[in-house]
């Protein structure tokens, strides 16, 4: 899936002013940016729902504007609204989507069974959708996108409203799907989840791509960010920091925060603390590397 120079405005509002993005098969690509950055609009363009004003888009090798049917046969899209029919049962709903995807009836029935098991909704199979909890609806919406076993997955905020267990399962599921060779594009604000899940990350802000990086090669942060240190002996840690003249915050049960400019500064401080025989347990950017990079790139 490749998008280059995509632009799209709604009347006078330029929602997307130039987004570049590549999502490769076998990888999970994270789409990250503030509210109103144009993520949802971009996903609508990729999902064959909006014609871009400019730019080139290819999804699963086809152009969503001129070959929407080819794209739809190979693409699954899960929007940030549920878009479910309240009065259908879960099974009926998935079978309906299968029929709409022109799958034979028997395939559709089998697919619905598999996906309901995958979403842990077997017990709710024959219950109407309106009786489901928010998280269950979210999972059913995701299963809808998987009905036709698409090669490309577009997920808009798939984890919002999910309980912790479901989020862990969602991460495992998306890794699994990428492992099957699918190109998975996830837009989300849950950066900690994305950091564990993604191979690559695309940052967008105000309708522009502001960065596209492998998750293990996020840009070195030059500006100071809070990092959190934890030691077996919090008082000893504070005393050591005072001796080294490193400004720090007040100790909390979560640890002690210091301002560090990037990985090298962190490594340097750690080495000095270890030499000072502080029993360190962990040292992490507060909110994770992805959050740090996000805050840096989307000022």
């Amino acid at each position, binding site marked *: 899936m490749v998008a280059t120079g995509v632009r799209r405005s*709604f*009347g006078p509002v330029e929602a997307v002013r130039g987004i570049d993005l590549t999502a490769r098969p076998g990888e999970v690509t994270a789409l990250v940016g503030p509210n109103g950055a144009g993520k949802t609009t971009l996903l*609508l*363009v990729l*999902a*064959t*729902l*909006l*014609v871009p004003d400019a730019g080139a888009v290819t999804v699963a090798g086809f152009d*969503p*504007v001129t070959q*929407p*049917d080819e794209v*739809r*046969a190979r*693409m699954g*899209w899960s*929007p*940030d*609204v*549920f*878009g*479910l*029919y309240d*009065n*259908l049962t879960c099974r*009926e709903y998935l079978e*309906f*989507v299968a*029929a*709409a*995807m*022109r799958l034979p009836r028997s395939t559709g029935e089998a697919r619905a069974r598999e996906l309901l098991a995958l979403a842990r909704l077997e017990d709710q199979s024959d219950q*109407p959708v309106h009786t489901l909890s928010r998280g269950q609806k979210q999972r059913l919406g995701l299963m*809808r996108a998987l009905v036709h076993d698409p090669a490309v997955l577009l997920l808009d905020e798939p984890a919002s409203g999910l309980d912790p267990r479901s989020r862990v399962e969602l991460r495992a599921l998306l890794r699994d799907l990428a492992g099957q060779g699918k190109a998975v594009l996830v837009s989300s604000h849950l950066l900690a989840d994305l950091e564990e899940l993604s191979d690559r990350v695309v940052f967008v802000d105000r309708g522009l791509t502001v960065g596209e990086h492998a998750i293990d090669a996020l840009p070195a942060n030059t500006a100071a960010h809070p990092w959190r240190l934890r030691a077996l002996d919090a008082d000893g840690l504070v005393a050591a920091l005072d001796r080294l003249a490193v400004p720090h915050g007040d100790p909390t049960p979560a640890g002690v925060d210091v301002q560090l400019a990037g990985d090298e500064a962190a490594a340097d401080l750690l080495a000095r603390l270890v030499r000072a025989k502080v029993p360190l347990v962990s040292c992490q950017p507060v909110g994770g590397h992805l959050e740090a990079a996000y805050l840096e790139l989307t000022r």
Partner: protein
Amino acid sequence: MRVDGVVTVARQEFTLRIRAGRWRWLLGTWFVLVSAFTVLVHLSVRASFHDATNKGVVVYGALVLFVLALALLVVPSLTGQSVNGDRERGTLATLQVTRLTALEIAVGKLVAAWGTALAFLALALPAVLYSVALGGIPVSRLVVVTVVVALLLGVVAALALCLSSLLARSTTSGVLSYLTVFAMTVGTLVVFGIGAAMSTEHYTEQTSCPTRQDLVDQGFPPEVLDRALADCRSTTYDGTRARTDHVWWLLAPNPFVIVADAAPQLPKETAAERRSRLSDERAGRYHEDLRHSDPLGAIGRGVRDLRKAPGSDTGRKPVWPFGLAFDLLLGAGAVWLTARRLHAPSRTLPRGQRVA
């Protein structure tokens, strides 16, 4: 467009409809209303024309007009929020990213709504058969009227569907679809009335004197011929008249006009019927034949008369083919426009509307 795609959409819409509304109550109310109306009309006809024959003609005619009016009230609500309601619930976009084409979605939604309308029509069938059993209605009229009413309800459903795809708010499109029905029924009457008034022209007509041969042919006795010819003066009349033959077509799209005019004429009295009537009359038993009080026939003759040019004697020409063809084209255009509006990816969106 593939048939299985249309079936998928229609079946889905149908299921949702049945589960969402209180259909049992709605259909039950409809059935009671139509049946009660029929029985009451029958009672009133029996009271006014006790010994009349062919009472079914009046009862059936009144029932058809009643059912048509009631159905025109019900049908817009079946599709008036079909597309924009889906948009508001966020279910339209998930349908658009499937492999169903826009036309399949549009036609599927129409089929479901039309099917529902036909279910209402089917529930009126017992009342219709009751009225037919009262005598005087040929099977051809029953079949033609049923088919034409069914087609017209499909047209109204298509128009309401189209409005729901054009407008962002389902309340607005709901109101507008009722206004559309109002335009087809009352609006055509109003416009025709205005048109007829505007078509008014002055005319002068000269009466000419007959020739001697004309009078002989008409059987005047020879002794008065000379007097009559001598007294005759050709005179000129001045007057105004509405040229409804120029504006009759304004009335043609009216569903009531179409149904009444399309209803095949009642058969003339057969020789056997005539013999039995005459023998009854000789015995002093007079029966009024209600075939002379046919409501549908009266409307049909009325509009056909409007079509006639003054002084023409070419007979009455039907109006309904024009009206029905116009309405069907309107309906087809509405489906086409709906499909266009459902096409994705889209370039433009109605104001204030989200894709998903």
